[in-house]
């Protein structure tokens, strides 16, 4: 098994992102799995940007821990990563002639200098090619398949003409020549290669995957307001929805977006919006309306660092409390959270299915790491998914009651245009007919109706059942949500490999809390459950404590970064 992490860091705008993308693409071309991770400043220009790619012949579960290779475009990048340049790692850096003014020597770290800026500027006379020079050097050093790199460049620049492609080839060659001529490889890292057939593999980002999942689910309406780090979901759908005669609207704000969505849903569309924390805060009133009026709708929330404007381009999982408890009054919602890029596609389909089936708002909590990262994943087959549509009023029904009390809490819905289906969609408490009523009995009955749905949601097989990892009998159970689930998988694998008695439970359903499954899981480890998550308050831990008999050990990291498996493993050992 090969497993390598290469990180590139520099100033935003220096082409870090595209260099990283190309490394990843080339690796995938050579049959490897990849998982990328990028952070960039909240400003348009300037500030530290970072892109890392993890390559493996095996399935990749998380960003991993640290890196093996770091490529520094400038001094700030070098400084920022100095602590992680531990013995055994490799540094490739821009020197001499660049921002870094002195030769670097670090104990136990193999350091290769490459005058990337100078080569680009002086030798090639094209400053913007610095990233390609770096790419060439990295390819040479770590044996990134040359044909794959060339294919990637052809794919990316082909449309711009032969000349552009050749220029880039030249830069790549300059980088690799510099290494050949000046360095002898002394480290042991190579990217490796695999014979895996890549015919059925796609590389896609989490945000695009959310859009793809929506398309597969049958979504035909999106209203959006741009916001980092969620905008790409909308960009994807802006391009794709019109192809199937779907509608996309850029609204004046997030309130209007969700207003559009609820109107469209009432009109019969499968409708959604995508946003991040600040936008979701603004949607709270209309989300409550959706619960009350029982309108299907899906909201994808790609979390960022909070509170307030916070850290717009950083990773965090701190919108769970709001997702579950955000609006006024008692309003039932469903909250789902995907684990990785492939999972997002599936969970989006689940979200639409549950929303349609139960006529309830469904929130999908993605996060900055998941939204921005790309992964190589098996190409999904749209036809293979189960698609559920809302139960409509049967035509020609006499005395239709929109909010009829039923055993499941779900009542058939009429769509404008259906004769005899006339009702008023309302946010006021109401009788079965939809006429307003403030009588105690109606409030009690309709509240029961609205909440009853959650009992069935927990048991619904449309939602992937929580997955167990490790032996039932263990000394510690670990649970998390969203992208941190990947970290848990990897850390628990490591722990088990070390012979520790640890297990994990992975649930995409966050709310309603799948109480029975969790209780059973906790039994096998005597109630000792660790909940790692990326927020300050330990939001999932508090919610689980509030709803189950567990008193979980909450482990929070809240620094704008994903949790590394090593870090979590250390915590596991600490609490064992």
């Amino acid at each position: 098994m090969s497993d390598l992490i290469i990180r590139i860091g520099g100033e935003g705008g220096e082409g870090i992102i595209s260099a990283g993308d190309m490394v990843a693409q080339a690796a995938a071309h050579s049959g490897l799995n990849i998982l990328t991770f990028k952070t960039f400043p909240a400003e348009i220009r300037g500030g530290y940007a970072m892109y890392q790619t993890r390559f493996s012949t095996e399935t990749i579960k998380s960003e991993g821990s640290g890196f093996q290779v770091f490529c520094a475009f400038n001094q700030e990048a070098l400084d920022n990563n100095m602590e992680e340049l531990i013995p055994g790692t490799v540094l490739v850096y821009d020197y001499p002639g660049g921002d870094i003014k002195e030769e670097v020597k670090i104990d136990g770290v193999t350091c290769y200098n490459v005058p990337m800026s100078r080569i680009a500027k002086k030798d090639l006379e094209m400053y913007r090619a610095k990233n390609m020079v770096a790419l060439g050097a990295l390819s040479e050093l770590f044996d990134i398949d040359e044909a794959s790199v060339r294919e990637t460049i052809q794919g990316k620049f082909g449309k711009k003409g032969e000349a552009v492609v050749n220029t880039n080839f030249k830069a790549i060659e300059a980088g690799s020549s510099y290494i050949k001529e000046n360095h002898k490889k002394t480290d042991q890292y190579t990217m490796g290669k695999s014979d895996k057939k890549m015919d059925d593999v796609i590389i896609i980002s989490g945000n695009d995957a959310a859009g793809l999942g929506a398309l597969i689910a049958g979504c035909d309406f999106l209203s959006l307001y741009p916001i980092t780090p969620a905008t790409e979901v909308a960009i994807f759908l802006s391009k794709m929805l019109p192809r199937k005669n779907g509608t996309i609207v850029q609204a004046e704000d997030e309130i209007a977006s969700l207003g559009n969505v609820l109107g469209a849903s009432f009109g019969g569309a499968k409708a959604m919006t995508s946003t991040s924390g600040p936008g979701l805060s603004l949607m709270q009133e209309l989300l409550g309306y959706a619960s009350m009026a029982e309108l299907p709708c899906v909201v994808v929330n790609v979390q960022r660092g909070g509170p307030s404007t916070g850290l717009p381009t950083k990773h965090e999982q701190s919108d769970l409390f709001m997702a579950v408890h955000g609006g006024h009054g008692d309003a039932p919602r469903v909250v789902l959270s995907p684990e990785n890029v492939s999972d997002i596609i599936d969970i989006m389909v689940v979200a639409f299915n549950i929303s349609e089936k139960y006529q309830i708002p469904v929130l999908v909590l993605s996060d900055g790491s998941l939204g921005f990262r790309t992964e190589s994943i098996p190409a999904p087959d749209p036809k293979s998914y189960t698609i559920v549509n809302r139960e409509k009023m049967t035509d020609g029904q006499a005395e239709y009651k929109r909010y009829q009390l039923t055993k499941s809490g779900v009542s058939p819905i009429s769509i404008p245009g259906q004769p005899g289906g006339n009702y008023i969609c309302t946010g006021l408490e109401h009788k079965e007919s939809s006429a307003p009523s403030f009588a105690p009995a109606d409030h009690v009955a309709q509240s029961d109706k609205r909440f009853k749905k959650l009992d069935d949601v927990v048991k619904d097989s449309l939602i992937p059942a929580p997955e167990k990892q490790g032996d039932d009998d263990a000394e510690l159970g670990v649970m998390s949500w969203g992208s941190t689930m990947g970290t848990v998988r990897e850390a628990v694998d490591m722990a088990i490999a070390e012979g520790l008695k640890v297990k994990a439970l992975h649930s995409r359903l966050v709310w309603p809390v799948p109480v029975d499954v969790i209780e059973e899981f906790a039994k096998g480890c005597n109630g000792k459950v660790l909940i790692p998550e990326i927020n300050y308050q330990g939001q999932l831990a508090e919610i689980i404590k509030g709803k189950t008999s567990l008193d979980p050990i909450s482990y929070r990291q809240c620094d704008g970064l994903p949790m590394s498996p090593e870090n979590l493993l250390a915590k596991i050992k600490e609490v064992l």
Partner: protein
Amino acid sequence: MCADALKAKDYKSDIRPVWCPGCGDYGVINSVQKAFAELQISIDETVAVSGIGCSSRLPYFLKTYGFHSLHGRVLPVATGIKLANPKLEVIAFGGDGDGFSIGGGHVPHVVRKNTDITYIIMDNHIYGLTKGQVSPTSNKGMVTVTTPYGSPDTSAVNPLSYVLTFGATFVAQCYSSNGKQMTELVRKAIEHKGFSYINIISPCLTFNKVDTTDFYKESVIDLPESHDPSNLVSALDMAINPPVGKTYTGLFYQSQKPTLVESIKAQQKKAGGDDNYDIANVVKEYKV
């Protein structure tokens, strides 16, 4: 009209209006039902949408489909309904507070996109449902419970120039006691292609003791015959500068522009829109 034609009363729901006796909104719903009958509008393919307020209760009293949304959110919701199914006739109702205070941020955009809906505001220059506070259309100095020393707002919102500025393609004003004119304008507004707006002066007898029916009896006058509704500048002039102490009613402005539904259809065409588009094509684009 044939024998089984729908009459105004056929558009009435079973729910009895809850407005105060004498409220202007009774006149409005009568005219709406009459206009519906004149157009023989389909009960099943019409949606009456509203926000929150006394006036926003109107959809409950109509037999069509209805959507009683949230305070200020009538326009985004109406837009969503229309775009989901352009075959529907979508009519938005609301009050001056609902439309121009909390909902005021939506107006410019729904108007400038020429969204294919009709918007009818019952303008009583007051917050009725919450029992009498100043609204954006109340005049400076108005004494209400939250402005016991008089409202400090230097200028009131002029609904007509508001929507004209953003490019509304149908703009009219009428008075809730003039059923004939009102019915005709509502009918025309519904027939209009694109965004149509009617400001209906609809007095609140209970909480507005300034702009009363007695006051309007004297002050409401028809637009001069000479006014040409295709002339935007004249329309703005009539809206902003009526004779002192008077308010014009009638059709201020009407024009044609591409509507939102048309523009979106054009986008879909450009994208090669196909109802049976195979999503597998999208997946292919992401192949390594």
